[in-house]
């Protein structure tokens, strides 16, 4: 690889009696350098973070104090998703009142299976007019930040154009608590 020409080019023959200088080899043992090289490669491969964090945009609505300024959602097109403790998800369609609370209030999970919230969103989306469809996300006090992000992600994944992040009401949080308590773990 790296070699120097040490022969004394030209035909200068040394005369008799002149001692021949001992020829030193200029070959260097490269093994340790290569070892070190590979060690460094391994180090840098492991420490490099290739995937950069991404950012998910969220636009907040302006708070409307007066009820008449608030956006109205059609009852038929509304799907409300409630986030509870331990990754529990609950949902109901339209409005919730005392008479129908128990029958309308259903539970789901974040999975993509049949009882997942995704299946429910797709079903609701297919059955309602696109302009009326709105999803209301109501995170409870016990749910985690991850749950909220997952729920918002679900909106992107399913192409829900109108959704809102709304505070949970007392009645709803009570219902969530009761259902959580009675649900088998």
């Amino acid at each position: 690889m790296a070699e120097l020409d040490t022969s004394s080019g030209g035909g200068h023959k040394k005369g008799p009696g002149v001692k021949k200088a001992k020829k030193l080899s200029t070959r260097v043992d490269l093994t340790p350098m290569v070892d070190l090289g590979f060690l460094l490669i391994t180090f840098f491969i492991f420490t490099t973070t290739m995937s950069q964090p991404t950012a998910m945009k969220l636009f907040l609505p302006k708070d409307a104090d007066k009820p008449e300024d608030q956006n109205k959602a059609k009852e038929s097109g509304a799907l409300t998703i409630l986030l509870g403790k331990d990754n529990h998800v609950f949902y109901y369609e339209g409005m919730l009142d005392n008479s129908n609370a128990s029958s309308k209030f259903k539970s789901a999970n974040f999975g993509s299976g049949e009882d997942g919230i995704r299946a429910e969103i797709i079903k609701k989306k297919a059955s309602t007019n696109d302009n009326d469809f709105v999803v209301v996300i109501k995170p409870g006090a016990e749910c985690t930040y991850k749950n909220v992000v997952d729920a918002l992600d679900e909106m992107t994944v399913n192409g829900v154009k109108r959704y809102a992040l709304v505070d949970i009401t007392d009645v709803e949080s009570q219902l969530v608590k009761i259902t959580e308590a009675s649900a088998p773990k």
Partner: protein
Amino acid sequence: MTAMCDVAFLLLSFFILTTKFKAPEAIAVQTPSSVASKVAPDKDVVLVTIDPSGKVFLSIGEDKTDDGRKDLIAKSIMENKKITFDVAKFKKAHFWGCSFAQLPSYLSIPEENRKGETLQGIPTDTIKGGTGSEFTEWMRIIKDAYSGGKMNLLLKGDNTSKYPAFKSVIDAFKKNDLMKFQMVTNPESIPVGTELWKNNLKGEKRDE
């Protein structure tokens, strides 16, 4: 052997050049994943971090332009809160996480000892008789420092932090008319068969 060595060292130089060392994180945060594909901005950043126990920390970029902003922020705090502290230390701090009153003592802690668990975070509970929390005031001061320029508001929350912490942060944003922000997440693949997946197959661009 020679060829292999050449390749090895080429790789080595590649990795050395591409590696960006992350600043040691004093606040351990595990971000959730989302399908968002836009890379988080790294200029003009105002980063709000929520740690697992719901404490809130603030940091802004460390570029040259941010330096002037830090000056503005420090001056504004000193004027509004009638406290004095070491501006140089304030600017050097990687993040701020305490109430205004505690700032002087917070800045006297050596940087390497400023670890997330031992700090109190910026109070997000509403001040009695006031309209917002101390965090709201922090955000107002920062917003003023960025007036006229671009500001990328980033929120980095931990998976396990509870929603009320997140909500108090959004409330503070809302009170300052900061209606647009981005949440830092890890990339995740789009679930197969969903609408977004189909749109992507069709080559449609999505607005994020």
